[in-house]
């Protein structure tokens, strides 16, 4: 009896130790990821002198200042950068969502000649980055009059996002039971109608896709820099980069611009994260 209870006691001490160690490591790493971001946020609400006097301190009534945000909103075209980024990201995601899910549906639903080959063709872009074609892409956009337009960016990002989207979504659509679709067909539903009925069933996959497409599009610097650098079409990422160059000593303004640039993406992530995890764990990212 005594040996058993001694055993369980050691066992439970071990478990407690394990529990503490495990959470200790996770907590320490979380501090490493969160603290720098918190530093940006708290200092964006402080006056310039206060930032350098003590960067670790929270803003107090004496040091609180929104001068950075004032600069961002009044002296730079930041609100317009914001709108540009939102338009580019939202329209790109919509296009990827509609076009990608349609193609995935066709690839997973119908047996036709060249199906496998087309699937392979469409997945080349998962591995070969679109950036490598930039020289030619820029020339084409120039000849189409699409440089310095949001449409140009949207088309490039849509092309960039489609391969992975189609790859993941078509695997998911394959898992939708046949009976369901056939029942709808018997009821006289058109193929378009059936596609529309399938969409809600693959929601987790689509959420995964949205998050994975949203982050690189919102944060991209390369294409805005090369194909849409004009003031009226600048995205937040490029705007913040240029802004940092101009206002390099105005830390308050730079910190404010950076704080603003990260908010939308974090909100979108929180909105989708539940579905993201479900999508990931149910095998959305099996190659």
């Amino acid at each position, binding site marked *: 009896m005594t040996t058993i209870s001694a055993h369980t006691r050691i066992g439970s001490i071990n478990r407690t130790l*394990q529990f503490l160690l*495990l959470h200790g*490591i*996770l907590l320490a790493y*979380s501090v490493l*990821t969160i603290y*720098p*971001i918190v*530093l*940006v946020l708290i200092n964006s609400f402080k006056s310039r002198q206060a930032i*350098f006097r003590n*960067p670790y301190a929270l803003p107090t009534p004496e040091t609180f200042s929104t001068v950075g945000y004032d600069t961002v909103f009044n002296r730079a075209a930041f609100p317009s950068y914001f709108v540009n980024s939102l338009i580019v990201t939202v329209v790109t995601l919509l296009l990827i969502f509609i*076009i990608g899910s*349609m*193609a995935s*549906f*066709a*690839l997973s639903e*119908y047996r036709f000649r060249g199906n496998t080959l087309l699937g392979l*063709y*469409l997945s080349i*872009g998962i*591995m*070969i*980055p*679109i*950036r*490598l*074609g*930039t*020289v*030619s*892409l*820029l*020339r084409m956009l120039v000849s189409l009059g699409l440089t310095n337009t949001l449409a140009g960016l949207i*088309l*490039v990002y*849509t*092309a960039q996002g*489609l*391969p992975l989207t189609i790859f993941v979504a078509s695997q998911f659509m394959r898992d939708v039971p046949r009976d369901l679709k056939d029942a709808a067909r018997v009821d006289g539903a058109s193929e378009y109608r059936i596609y529309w009925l399938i969409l809600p069933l693959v929601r987790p996959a689509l959420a995964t896709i949205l998050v994975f497409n949203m982050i690189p599009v919102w*944060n*991209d*610097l*390369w294409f805005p820099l090369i194909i849409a650098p004009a003031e009226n079409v600048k995205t937040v*990422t490029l705007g913040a980069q240029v802004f*940092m160059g101009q206002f390099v000593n105005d830390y308050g303004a*730079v910190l404010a611009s*950076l704080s603003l*640039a*990260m908010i939308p*993406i*974090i909100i979108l*992530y*929180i909105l989708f*994260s539940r579905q993201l995890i479900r999508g*990931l764990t149910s*095998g959305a990212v*099996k*190659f």
Partner: protein
Amino acid sequence: MTRKRFPTHIIVFLAPAVIIYTVFMIYPLIDSLRLSLYAPSAENPQVEEFVGFKNYETLFTDPNYAPRLQGAVKNNFIFFAVHMLVQNPVGLLLATLLTSQLTRWRGVFRTALFLPTMLSFVLVGFIWGNIILSPLWGIADDFFRTIGLGDLIQPWLGKPETALITLSLVSVWQFIGIPMMLFSAALIGISDELIEAARVDGATAWGVFWYIKFPLILPTVGIVTILTFVGNFNAFDLIYTVQGGLAGPNFATDILGTFFYRTFFGFQLQAGNPTMGATIAGVMFLIILTGVLVYLVGFQRRLTRVEY
């Protein structure tokens, strides 16, 4: 006998994706490879003429290009090595901890660990380049002093010997969320019964990880490796935001992406050269393609053979 018509609805479903993808992705990739075989004509620089592999010859032998190419390739491999040695093992460790049965507040930790991955390069570059590692703020200095390692205080990004490794680690900080997510997903997929059975047989936590979990997530290890490879050899943004297009100090952080950008677009006094840019893109294409083929043939195929 008439041939059966290809069903219209299949075309309607597929056409938009195929057209956008072909026009804006596949065509530019191929056309860019074609452009790498052309150069502005000596008589009329407006006209480009076919020169065969001469651009590649220039890139590999010309004293203006060859040292930069070698430097960029070498730096890129170091950049990749740091990701493989730090990002992916630590990502796996965090995923293992996150998916452990003992772990509480999983969602909170997961979001915290994934947070940097959502941030733009501009923000990440500014946080590390201008705040933490900047002597002006001295946050890294304070940190080293606090933990009693004052000797480590130095301009990490300013010295050619340390700048590349430092930037690679910043990139690791940013992207660790991706292996963490993919490994978590794979680990969650492992059945509890399997692990329980091993425990009953007396396996230690380490034994369970090494002999049961790791072999089962091997496919994910492959995916993470190839994604890291492609991402690293295509990287540009972080180096550009922190060190500028010249990838200083003295090209110590120059990788293929920054070399490509400078050559294609020009930087400061150097004029842009699109066809030479396309040539560098061609080299990047070859490197990435080689990596992908090694993965598909050498790794993925062997895995499927084991499965059946």
